[in-house]
């Protein structure tokens, strides 16, 4: 895997983890002692820190480490969870998010000044929660750029020494290449304090073979630096990188790491173990612990001679019990992680798009084959193609299903928004979510976030009244914003509702009049009046105090939704609240269509919208020749003659049919010549030239290679209904 790709994965995972973290943090607000939530938060921070370290993102590691420490105390019950801490942790989460985004933006090296300042501020606040974590003196919290200072002892299994341990083995040619190990160590001394050096002359051969111009030395260095990270230490030895073996153990590495480290060195293992102690990298405490184990061993097995310290450290089986526990826990965690991984695969979105494209082409090709089979009247071939088309249909559905995601994730993001905005506004507002499991196409989900954000903010800002007003109106002081989603005849409906003051019809009407959007003589339904707030530049700031003051935005919301072939409508009851309903198509790529013929042309409507088909007899045709509605089982059904609508010139068929379509609760009929049945339509967008065409939303290719137009049913229904109302009014 390329590093770049791995980094992308890291970024993606971090974002997900941060989201999970936020969710759990918000959960803690209502249930402060939920151990699962605390663990989830801790794990998120821990994983981000760990993965960040892999990429050398020291800023993230340093900051997250402090957060993790505080979380660890919370987990251990040493620090109480309260609103203040949750708010602080939320800010920390945001800060980590910021650092991650800056990595994503490519400024990995250094966070900008502002971020750095935020980091320092947060670290200072965190200090209050970590004071007294361990009896070891705490290094004062510092900027992310000083990871050394913020690296704190990890609980369990880590060695106590707060120093770096650097192991150097120079190649024989280093002197001849004009480098002097002395100089490098001297230079290292400039960066911090070299607390201890052990020079290892062991590699020097007997004097006859010893070449005085070769270097045979190795060094074990215990180093302490305030301003130093691993890269900086590596940087010191940059020039001799090819000529030396460099191993660096950061402060408080685990004993296991030391064991591996020792095993990786050429010298005698036992001696090295003792050297490390001498060097100060392993301290008296670790030594004692190892000795204790040694005692137990001897007592248990009746061994004659106790193994030396080095042996104990090397023998992985006899590391202190807490280390074994930690290692076991780690393994278990890894296993759980693996199980989860096998359930989920990460795929690039464009690979999926490619698949859907191919499926689309296959649908078209399949349709062509079926057509041929029909023409040839070969029953065997016909049967084969019908099996094939069933399979194609299933493949299409599963391929589209792959892109379906639950809207819940998008909804959950609003928990934080509502929390923050309500604090900002000084209103007590809660968020209620329903229908979170409703699925819709990923591409739709991505685009719906911004409009939703706007609507939610609007509801909170201008929909929900101040607490006093609410009390006066006999409503609970706490306002509620409601997010809901459900499927309805081939589309998904997303609702943003509030239990606020509702819209004021008169004021909107007056404002629209003033703006010249309507004339005084117009009679408008409530629906239409409310719809006016989506008009561009319709700011009701002065006119309607309980509605958006910004004005800009609502029209953008509508434009965004319409770009997705969706519609927005608004329902409101004064004093009781407002609900904005967004209706979106489930998918943007392939639909189950209903194919109809008018003259020589073919049209497709989404099958989900078709309610029924009615044949028009000769008598009825005469009857309705001049009108635009029929009596359908006692109700008025307005209709549109597609022949007239699209100026079809071909000879009229002997028979006509009405296709009854329904959208957003309204019904209308489409009069066509021929009903051609179900058809899988791969939606091809129309060119720019046809962008302004009303009533057509796209095109598709038939099996015969001809082009059929996909009808924009909402627009047609609107037209039919309008026509009808106008006729009735006149």
């Amino acid at each position: 895997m390329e590093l770049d790709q791995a980094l992308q994965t890291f970024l993606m995972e971090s974002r997900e983890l941060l989201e999970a973290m936020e969710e759990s943090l918000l959960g803690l607000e209502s249930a402060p002692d939920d151990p699962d939530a605390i663990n989830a938060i801790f794990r998120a921070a821990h994983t981000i820190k760990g993965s960040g370290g892999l990429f050398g993102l020291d800023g993230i590691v340093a900051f997250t480490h402090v957060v993790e420490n505080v979380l660890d105390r919370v987990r251990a019950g040493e620090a109480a969870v309260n609103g203040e801490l949750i708010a602080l942790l939320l800010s920390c989460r945001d800060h980590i998010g910021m650092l991650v985004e800056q990595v994503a933006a490519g400024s990995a090296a250094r966070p900008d000044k502002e971020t750095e300042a935020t980091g320092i501020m947060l670290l200072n606040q965190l200090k209050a929660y970590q004071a007294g974590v361990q009896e070891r003196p705490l290094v004062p919290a510092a900027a992310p750029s000083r990871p050394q200072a913020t690296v704190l002892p990890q609980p369990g299994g880590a060695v106590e020494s707060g120093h770096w341990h650097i192991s150097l083995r120079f190649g024989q040619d280093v002197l001849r290449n004009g480098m002097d190990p002395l100089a490098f160590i001297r230079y290292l001394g400039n960066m911090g304090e070299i607390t201890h050096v052990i020079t290892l002359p062991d590699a020097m051969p007997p004097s006859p073979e010893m070449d005085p111009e070769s270097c045979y030395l190795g060094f074990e260095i215990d180093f302490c630096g305030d301003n130093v990270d691993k890269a900086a230490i590596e940087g010191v030895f940059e020039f001799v990188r090819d000529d030396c073996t460099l191993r660096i153990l950061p402060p408080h590495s685990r004993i296991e790491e030391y064991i591996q480290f020792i095993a990786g060195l050429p010298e005698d293992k036992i001696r090295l173990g003792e050297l490390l102690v001498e060097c100060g990298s392993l301290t008296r405490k670790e030594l004692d612990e190892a000795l204790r184990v040694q005692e137990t061993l001897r007592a248990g097995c009746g061994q004659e001679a106790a193994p030396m310290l080095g042996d104990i450290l090397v023998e992985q089986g006899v590391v202190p019990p807490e280390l074994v526990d930690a290692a076991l826990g780690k393994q278990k965690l890894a296993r759980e992680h693996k199980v989860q991984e096998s359930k989920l695969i990460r795929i690039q979105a464009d690979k999926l798009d490619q698949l859907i494209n191919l499926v689309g082409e296959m649908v078209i090709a399949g349709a062509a084959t079926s057509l041929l089979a029909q023409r040839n009247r070969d029953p065997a071939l016909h049967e084969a193609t019908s099996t094939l088309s069933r399979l194609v249909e299933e493949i299409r559905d599963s391929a589209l299903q792959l892109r379906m995601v639950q809207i819940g994730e998008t909804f959950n993001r609003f928990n934080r928004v509502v929390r923050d905005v309500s604090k900002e506004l000084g209103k007590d507002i809660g968020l209620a979510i329903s229908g979170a499991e409703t699925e819709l196409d990923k591409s739709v989900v991505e685009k719906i976030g911004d409009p939703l954000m706007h609507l939610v903010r609007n509801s909170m800002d201008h929909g929900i009244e101040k607490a006093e007003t609410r009390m006066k109106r006999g409503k609970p002081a706490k306002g509620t914003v409601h997010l809901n989603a459900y499927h309805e005849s081939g589309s998904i409906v997303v609702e943003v509702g509030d239990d606020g003051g509702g819209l004021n019809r008169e004021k909107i009407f007056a404002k629209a009049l003033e703006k010249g959007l309507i004339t005084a003589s117009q009679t408008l339904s409530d629906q239409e009046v409310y719809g006016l707030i989506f008009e561009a530049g319709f700011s009701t700031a002065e006119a309607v105090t309980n509605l958006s003051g910004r004005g800009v935005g609502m029209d953008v919301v509508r434009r965004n939704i319409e770009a997705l072939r969706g519609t927005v409508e608004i329902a409101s009851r004064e004093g009781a609240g407002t609900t904005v309903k967004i209706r979106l198509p489930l998918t943007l790529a392939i639909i189950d269509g209903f194919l109809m013929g008018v003259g020589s042309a073919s049209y497709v409507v989404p099958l989900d919208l078709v309610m029924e088909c009615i044949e028009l007899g000769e008598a009825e045709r005469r009857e309705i020749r001049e009108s635009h509605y029929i009596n359908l089982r006692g109700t008025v059904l307005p209709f549109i003659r597609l022949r007239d609508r699209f100026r079809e010139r071909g000879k009229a068929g002997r028979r006509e049919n009405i296709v009854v379509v329904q959208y957003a609760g309204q019904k209308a009929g489409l009069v066509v010549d021929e009903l051609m049945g179900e058809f899988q339509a791969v939606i091809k967008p129309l060119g720019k030239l046809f962008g302004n065409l009303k009533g057509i939303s796209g095109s598709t290719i038939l099996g015969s290679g001809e082009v059929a137009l996909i009808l924009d049913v909402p627009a047609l229904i609107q037209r039919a209904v309008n026509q009808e109302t106008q006729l009735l009014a006149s």
Partner: protein
Amino acid sequence: MTISIETGNGVCQARVAGEMTIYHAAGMKGELLSCLDRCTELEINLSEVSEMDTAGFQLLLLAKREAANAGKRLRLVAHSPATLEVLDLFNMAHYFGDPVMMPRHGH
């Protein structure tokens, strides 16, 4: 670099002057080892060593080891500041086990 040698009573006194660096290491190795061969006790006076690098230091290590292997004694005396710095940096003064005069403006 010059090494002047005085011998008496089985004790060989070698006085190294100038640079103890890689440029002279090959020659110095021969001289020091042959010195050691000829005596039972070698005293190396470092007072006039103006510069020492890793190669020079390695030669001292080699001499010390060879002496120990042969059951002879090797002493380093009158360390110059340049020598002391190297011994200090490598933390090897104890290895040679010689009394060291700390320079006045040292640590």
